[in-house]
C-alpha cells in the first residue's frame, strides 16, 4: 500500500490509423521502485507501444503516466525526465555513426551541467562497466552487434537513471552476447536498485524477472495476480 512506485500508469489508450488499431486499450500498471518486470505477450499486443508511452516517446490518446511523484505533461517535461530518470535500450543500438563509442555515451549528458572532463571520465567508466573500454575511441561501424549494444547500454546509464526500459534489448544478439547484456542489467538492478522493465519474447528471460506483465490485444496485467478492472 505504501510501497513507492517508480511508475504508475492509469487508463493508457493509444490508437493508430484513425482509431482502426487500438494498440493500447486502457492499460493500468504499477511498477514498484526497484522491481524487475518482464513485459510479455504475442506480437502486436502493444508491448512496444506501452514502453514508448511509459517513456513519453509517444503521446497517448488517453490516460496518465506518473514517474515517481510527478506527471510529465509536455514533450519538454518528458525529455527532461528521460535525461534524468529513464534509461532506454532498444532492439537496435541507434548509435550515432559519426561519433566514437565514448562520445555516443557523452552526448546523453548534454545539458546536465557536468563539466566536459567529468563527462568524459564518467563515459569511460561506464564503458569499462559494460566491458567496452577497449574500443572507447572507435566508431560503431567497425564494431560487432554485441559491442554496439553494450555501448547503447552504457549510454542509457549515463545520468544514473532510476528506471531502465528495454525493448527486446537482446533481440539482435547471439546467446553469448545476449547473456552478457542481461547479466549487466540484472547486476545494476541488484546493486543499485535500478527499476528494470524488459519487453521480451524469451520465457527464460521473463522468468528471471520478479514480475511478469502480460499484454494481450492492447490490455495487460501482472500474471499471477488476480486484479480485475
Amino acid at each position, binding site marked *: 500500500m505504501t510501497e513507492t512506485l517508480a511508475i504508475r500508469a492509469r487508463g493508457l489508450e493509444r490508437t493508430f490509423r484513425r482509431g482502426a488499431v487500438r494498440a493500447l486499450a486502457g492499460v493500468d500498471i504499477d511498477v514498484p521502485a526497484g522491481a524487475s518486470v518482464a513485459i510479455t505477450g504475442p506480437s502486436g499486443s502493444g508491448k512496444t507501444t506501452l514502453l514508448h508511452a511509459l517513456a513519453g516517446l509517444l503521446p497517448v490518446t488517453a490516460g496518465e503516466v506518473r514517474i515517481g511523484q510527478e506527471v510529465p505533461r509536455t514533450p519538454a517535461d518528458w525529455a527532461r525526465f528521460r535525461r534524468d530518470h529513464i534509461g*532506454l535500450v532498444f532492439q537496435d543500438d541507434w548509435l550515432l555513426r559519426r561519433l566514437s563509442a565514448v562520445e555516443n555515451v557523452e552526448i546523453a549528458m*548534454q545539458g546536465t551541467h557536468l563539466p566536459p572532463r567529468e563527462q568524459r571520465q564518467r563515459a569511460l567508466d561506464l564503458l569499462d562497466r559494460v566491458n567496452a573500454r577497449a574500443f572507447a575511441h572507435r566508431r560503431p561501424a567497425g564494431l560487432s552487434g554485441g559491442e554496439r549494444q553494450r555501448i547503447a547500454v552504457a549510454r542509457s546509464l549515463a545520468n544514473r537513471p532510476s528506471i531502465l526500459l528495454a525493448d527486446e534489448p537482446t533481440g539482435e544478439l547471439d546467446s553469448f552476447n545476449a547473456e552478457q547484456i542481461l547479466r549487466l542489467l540484472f547486476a545494476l538492478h541488484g546493486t543499485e536498485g535500478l527499476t528494470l522493465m524488459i519487453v521480451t519474447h524469451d520465457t527464460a528471460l521473463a522468468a528471471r524477472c520478479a514480475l511478469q506483465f502480460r499484454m494481450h490485444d492492447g490490455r495487460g496485467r501482472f500474471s499471477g495476480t488476480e486484479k480485475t478492472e
Partner: protein
Amino acid sequence: MTLFGVALRNLSGWQPRNLGALAGITIAVASFVALVGLARGVEHSLLSTLVDRGTDLMVTEAGALDLVSSIVPDARAEDIDEIEGVTRTAPELSRLTSLDDGRSVGVVGWPVGSFPWESLTVVEGRLPAGPDRREVAVGEALAERAGFAMGDEVWLFQTRFEITGVVTAPTVLARSLAYVPLTQAQALTFRDGQATVINVRTDPDRPDEVAGRIRERFPDLAVERAETLASDFMFARIAAVLAYAISTVALVSAGLVIFTAMSTAVAARRGEIAILSAIGWARWRIVSALLIEGTVIAMVAGVAGAAAGVLAAEAVAARPDISGFVAPRIGAALLAQGVGLSLAVGIVGSLLPALSVTRRPPAEVLRGK
C-alpha cells in the same frame, strides 16, 4: 562534448548529403554573384564611358532609340556653340565595324583637336594628327585583345589605317574603342556631314538651363545630361533590368536549392534525431544542433560560392568575343550579399525542416528499422 562539437562532428567526413547541399549552395551563390556582377558591369561601363568623356550635355536626334542610330547634322555643333552658356561643342560619329578576324570593334570619330580627345590619355605614340590622315588611336584593351602595336596597319571600314597611338581611359569600354578623325569616319561610312551625337560642354553651374535653351532653339533635337542619357540608353536599361531579373531568379533558385538540400539532409536523419530525443535532448537543443550544421554548411558554401562567382565572372568577361567590353563589377557589398543570402537561406532552410521533424514523436522512428 559540446553541442557545437556534436554538430561539427556530424559534418565531418565527406558525406554525400552534406556534399550535395554544399555543392547546391555553392553553385547558387556563384551564379548569383557572377550574373549580377556581369550585369552591373555592363550597365556601369556604358554609363561611365559617356560621363567620363567630359561632356555635360549630349545632343541627339529626337526619338532615336540609342546613340548609334541617331543622326544629327554636324553643322549643328557650331550653331549650338553660339548659345549662351555653351563653352565648347564637338560632333561625334560612332559606328561598329569588323576587324579582319571578324570581331567587331566600336569606332569613334571626333574632329581633330576637339575636347573629347582630352578624355584619353596617350600611353604610347600620339593621337591622329590631321583630318586627312588615316590614323587611328586604339584603346589599350583593344590593342591587347587584337594584338595591335604602334605602327601596325589596321583595316577599318575596308580601309587601311595606321596605328599612331595607344590610349587609355577610365572605363573598359572606352579602352576597347578605336578613335579616328571625324572626317575619316564620315567619309568611310558614307555619312558626310553627319554625326550621331553632339557633345556639349557648358558653364559648370548651369547645364540644365543651357539644355533648355538648346531644346527651345532646336525642337528636333533631344538634349540630355550625359548621365541621364546614358542610363536611358537602351542597352543600359536592358542591362539594369537584366541585373534585377537575374538577381531575383538567382536568389529564388538559390533559396530553393538550399531549402531542398537542407530538408533532405534533415529528413535522412530522423533516426539520429529520434534517439537524441530518447536520451533526453530537449527539442531546442536538437534544433540548435541542426541549425549549427546548416549554418556551417551555408557559411562554407557561401564563401566558396562567392569566390567561384568572381572566377566565373572573370572567365565570362575574358571570352574572346566580348573581352574588354565588360568588366564584372563585384564589390564587397555584392560578395557580402552572396554570403548573407546563403546564410539566410541556410538558417531558414535548416530551421524549418528541423522544427518540423522534431515535432513528430520519436516513437515512430524508434519502433524498429
